[in-house]
């Protein structure tokens, strides 16, 4: 009679990429699988999450093992794979562990790149699909709505998804720490290089505009400017352009620094109160070290950026720990909520049953009192309601307390028996 919440599936931790890829199905196929499983009554509730990194089945069933087997047999069948081939890569958890898993997945703590933001959308899609297929019940509904709120809290209360761990995104993050918004900040790209171009692209995605591109080879500058939707400028004009821009990305192969203290000072003097951020990706350095000493100028070379990347990594680990602690607290909360879910149907039918009796008896009594005044009617109404409430108080309290203490099912049975409620209305089964 009791049902269990379970999660079963494979992820980047347990299965090779070829297997995951071949098992990941398109939406209409998933719809088919869900509908088929639901029609066979394999599980009370079911949801399938299918991404390139994980294929997982979330469900509520009386026999989770059978439900899992049926689900993966159906998933494998679409690709001509037998359950036996999939079984070794499947990991199954239930109850508290399943709840934790659901929260960690949605919050991107179980992702290949921890803190990436795509997974939440994918979980939401999977949930929407299951809702459309009508395979979602009260438990999955509660689980997923809480998983979404956990994911949101992790994203807003920790920096897990925000700290950059690559050189180019770290440079952009530093720009944000200096300028706040990148909207309308002008960028000058000196030279070319993969990291430099990526940083320029990221800055522009953040709203930076315009982008100037300078190169010793004018043709190269033109090509790059075209590719990055920027504007090519002559190398001789660099000092003048530098006075205009907010961010300079230098990445040339010049053996000597090309931005000297005097150049930087001249660039800052004309600008009044706007900081200048120099990202020096050249090895050897393109910007003279002493430039950083100028007021309002911030200069980071490759080593400096690497330092920040390392600091970000350490900070990210601390943030991940905070996120895990947050998930842990939410799991505890959900367990309480789940137990309430368990007894709520019984409480509802108990109320309905007694209310039905009360109404019936009250109508009978009033039928025998045709001359009753409005006042008498009200007194009778209040009297019957008070009796019902007093009778209900003890069993309802008992149900709530026992469910929180973890033995709700026993009391659901007792109460159902004593009050002659419809069996099967209590608990998670439907």
């Amino acid at each position, binding site marked *: 009679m009791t049902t269990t919440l379970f999660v079963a599936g494979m992820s980047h931790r347990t299965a090779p990429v070829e297997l995951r890829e071949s098992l990941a199905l398109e939406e209409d196929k998933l719809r088919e699988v869900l509908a088929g499983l639901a029609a066979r009554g394999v599980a009370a509730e079911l949801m399938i999450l299918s991404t390139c990194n994980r294929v997982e089945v979330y469900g509520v069933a009386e026999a989770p093992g059978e439900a899992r087997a049926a689900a993966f047999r159906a998933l494998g069948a679409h690709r001509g794979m037998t359950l036996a081939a999939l079984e070794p890569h499947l990991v199954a958890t239930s109850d508290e562990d399943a709840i934790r898993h659901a929260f960690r997945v949605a919050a991107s703590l179980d992702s290949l790149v921890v803190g990436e933001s795509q997974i939440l959308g994918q979980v939401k899609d999977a949930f929407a699909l299951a809702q459309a297929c009508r395979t979602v019940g009260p438990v999955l509904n509660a689980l997923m709505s809480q998983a979404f709120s956990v994911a949101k809290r992790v994203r807003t*209360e920790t*920096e897990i998804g925000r*700290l950059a761990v690559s050189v180019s995104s770290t440079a952009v993050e*530093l720009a*944000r*720490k*200096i*300028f*706040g*918004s990148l909207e309308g900040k002008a960028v000058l790209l000196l030279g070319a290089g993969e990291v430099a171009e990526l940083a320029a692209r990221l800055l522009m995605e953040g709203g930076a505009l315009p982008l100037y591109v300078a190169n010793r080879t004018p043709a190269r500058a033109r090509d790059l400017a075209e590719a990055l939707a920027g504007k090519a400028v002559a190398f001789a004009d660099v000092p003048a352009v530098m006075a205009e821009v907010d961010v300079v990305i230098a990445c040339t192969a010049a053996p000597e620094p090309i931005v000297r203290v005097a150049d930087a000072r001249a660039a800052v003097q004309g600008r*009044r*109160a706007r*900081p200048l951020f120099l990202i020096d990706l050249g090895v050897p350095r393109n910007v003279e070290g002493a430039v*950083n000493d100028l*007021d*309002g100028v*911030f200069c*980071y070379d490759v080593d*400096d950026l690497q*330092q*920040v990347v390392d*600091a*970000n990594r350490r*900070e990210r680990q601390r943030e991940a720990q*905070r996120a895990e602690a*947050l998930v842990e607290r939410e799991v505890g909360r959900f367990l309480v909520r789940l137990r309430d879910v368990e007894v709520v149907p019984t409480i509802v039918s108990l109320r309905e049953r007694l209310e039905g009796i009360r109404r019936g008896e009250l109508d009978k009594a009033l039928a025998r009192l045709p001359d009753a005044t409005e006042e008498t009617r009200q007194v009778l109404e209040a009297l019957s309601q008070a009796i019902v409430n007093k009778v209900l108080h003890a069993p309802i309290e008992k149900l709530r307390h026992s469910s929180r203490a973890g033995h709700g099912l026993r009391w659901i049975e007792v109460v159902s028996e004593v009050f002659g409620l419809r069996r099967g209305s209590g608990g998670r089964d439907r």
Partner: protein
Amino acid sequence: MTRALGVNAILYDVALTAYIVAMAAALGHLVRRREGFWRLALVATQAGWLFHTMAIVVRGVELGRLPILTLPEIVSVVIWAAVLLELWAERQYRVRALGAFVLPVVVALGLVLPTGLRSLALEPSIRSAWIWVHVALALLGLAALVLNFAAAVMYLLQERQLKTRRPSAVYYRLPPLETLDRLSHRTLTLGFPFLTAGLLLGVLWAGAAWGSVLAWDPLALFSVLMWLVYAATLAGRTIGRWQGRRAAYFAVAGFGLLLLTLCASVLLQGKHGA
């Protein structure tokens, strides 16, 4: 009367205790970044402010006048307004670290208030309707300048982090330089007109009452000095478009003078204090 005074003092102590709790939590949040710390700081600040409000109201009722005549009363209202502004700015600018910088100032001033400062009363010759407007305006200005100071300190810290290129915990907690610069500019533009109007009224009034515009009074002198520093900062920002760092140094200097002004009125006997 003495019993009523007790109520006011108790309310004030409760408020101050809440501010101290809030400060500890805000500093804890700055270092450990626990969400709970920030919430605690916010709730304690709000609770402290409510108790503080009650304390001021009770004080006003028992005195039968606005409680901004003696120095302790003035300091009390300054920090009351500063806390209110802090709650607003934290929300407006999304600077969660703000409490960690404003609350220490609030607590320091609040602790000094009952012990270090004697209950100074104004001499009878300067009691007039003007005085209320003068003091009230100056107070609003001072409260904004407490925030101006906090923003400046945060700016200098964050600027140092970015210059040294070795990020520590502070780097992650503090908002962008630009945000801090805007906050300090905003609080200056907010506080300065009030400060100016307040001081101007004082000067005009002093001319009428004492016969001289700049009577030899330490509070008046330091006030003018402080005003000059803030005026220079505002001028530098508007006309010269100063770098945030210079403006921040001036904000710190201005606040130093502000504290000196308060001290001067206690230590040196002038016409403001009797």
